[in-house]
């Protein structure tokens, strides 16, 4: 925790029951980082109703879409295949180990993600495909936008903030901070180490001809 430069600011909240909380993530060069997972886990409330809506991890142009999907614990995720070719999705992650054949015209059954953690996805047919499902133990989560910032409206109380992106090279895989809302409703996380290379070019220039890769 001491390695991170954390700014807390106190603002008066307009509501007794909930407050908008703003969390920003910047690199060691003070550049905003997008697509960072931010979750807020309440220290008081331990159980939540399982989400009824299916989350979607699609296969589009031989890529996982979205690259990073956040779901609440006990969510069901459906893996449609929007490509005209077959995929064979797998995960070796301890949070969810599975393999799934995704034929172009057949819909696979949704999978239940009941353990919190990070699930890394690959495709055994298209080796460049890489995606993540972040299973959160809370309904309060979001990904940072281009400004490197999320705004979450959460009930007042004490929270554990988790911050994660696959490009982080920090001491811990998932960074965590304490936050008491509404007295502390703004947090800026500055990384100590540089980010891993941006390999989003793997998402670019996808070839329509994949017979022969």
């Amino acid at each position, binding site marked *: 925790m001491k390695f991170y430069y954390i700014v807390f600011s106190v603002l008066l909240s307009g509501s007794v029951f909930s407050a908008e909380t703003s969390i920003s993530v910047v690199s060691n060069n003070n550049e905003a980082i997008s697509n960072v997972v931010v979750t807020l886990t309440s220290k008081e409330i331990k159980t939540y109703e399982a989400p009824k809506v299916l989350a979607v991890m699609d296969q589009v142009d031989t890529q996982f879409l979205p690259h990073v999907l956040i779901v609440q614990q006990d969510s069901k995720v459906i893996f449609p295949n929007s490509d*005209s*070719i*077959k995929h*064979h999705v*797998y995960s*070796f992650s301890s949070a969810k180990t599975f*393999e799934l*054949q995704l*034929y*172009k*015209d*057949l819909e696979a059954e949704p999978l239940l993600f009941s353990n919190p953690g990070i699930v*890394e996805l*690959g495709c*055994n*047919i298209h*080796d*460049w*495909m*890489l995606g993540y499902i972040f299973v959160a133990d809370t309904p309060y989560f979001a990904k940072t936008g281009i400004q490197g910032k999320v705004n979450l409206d959460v009930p007042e109380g004490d929270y554990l903030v988790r911050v994660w992106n696959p490009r982080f090279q920090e001491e811990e895989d998932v960074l965590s901070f304490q936050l008491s809302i509404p007295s502390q409703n703004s947090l800026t996380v500055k990384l100590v180490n540089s980010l*891993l*290379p941006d*390999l989003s*070019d*793997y998402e*670019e*220039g*996808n*070839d*329509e*001809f*994949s*017979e*022969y890769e």
Partner: protein
Amino acid sequence: MKKVTTNFLNMNRSRLKQIQVLILVKSLFYSCKGLCLLMLLVCSSKALALEVKGVIQANFVVADGHASWFEHGTGILAYSENGFNIQQALVKVSDSYSNGFGFDLVANYYQLGSQNLGISQAQLAYKPLSNSKLRWRARAGFFYPKMSLENVDTGWLSPFTYTQSAINSWIGEELRVAGAEFTLFSPGRSRKSPLSWELHGAVFKGNDPLGTAISWRGFTLHDRQSLNNDKVPFAAYPSVVQEDRIFHPNYVEPYHELDGRLGFYLGAHLDYFKQSSLRYYFYDNQADPLVVNSQRLYAWRTKFHSLSIQHKFTSNTRVIAQWMSGSSNMGQRFVYINFDAWYIMFSHKLKKHRFTARLDDFQVREDDIFLWDPNNSDGKAITLAWRYDLNKHWQVGIEQHFNENSSDIRATVGQDVSIDQQQSLAVIQYRW
């Protein structure tokens, strides 16, 4: 009584119809068992969750009148006459399983050539599920080494032009291995690197007569892939076919195993993201050039290097090039050739239009003992193609091809050594 007779007649008619249908089905089945099998596979694909793809191309060709090798002529383009043709008709059936095994089978129909229906590729593959940085996979069967960056469409077709480069026209008609390939590879993304690499090594039987066609006939430009028991014909050159000369038939069956030796190839791929690709292969069939079979087909010791590159300037614009250099030897240096060929191709996709231009250069030079069997040949070619996707199933296209080529052996059949050729194609394609 009348009613009974009518019923009897009706029954007989109905039985006759059944018999006729049975005969028709039987005759169809026996005349094209392969096609029936394919249809069954297509019909049952949904239930079995197989992946079934197909491509059919019909063309109208304006040819230049030089008879092609299919007609035992000396022209280097596939069509000898103007007219409508089925250019390609193929079905690819494939699947892969949770245990890492998978298979691919490509069956083709060709209007041109002596074998009209057959298999062009059939392989079993094993690729264990792995998330490690260093992975492996293997395949066995009847397949192409993955040296071409041009033949990336279903069934080893080119999505860029209809008439393929001289290099890959030759690979399609004479090169296929019946063997096993082992691949060690490292996907860049697993190492958080933009570079991915693959190393391939294979051993195989068969493919001993490889080199026959380009030695005598020279390079050609077309898109016909030889099928499993196929025959590549060429003109009856006196120095080849006469009993007092080399005494070889005026065809080659390229996939024979003649000497019992194993051939091999080695390959390396390097990719930068999915933007740039480099593929190097060394192929050697290790054939014993002194071995000849009862058809008087020889084993030709053929080896070559192949280097292919692709760079995508944008997702819509790319350049592809390939260079090949090698040699082939038959008998006690009865025929010995060195061959070199290259092409460079630019392709740009503008919405549903794809425009492609390719330049080919090819050369065969002999260094053997029979002066009366001249094997020098060479040529240059330009191929321009436009292909337009009407929807995800239908595509239309036009191609114009020009070449100037020379082949010394034409003099032995009283023809001009050097000729210029051109060919225009209008093609409609359906895929599923």
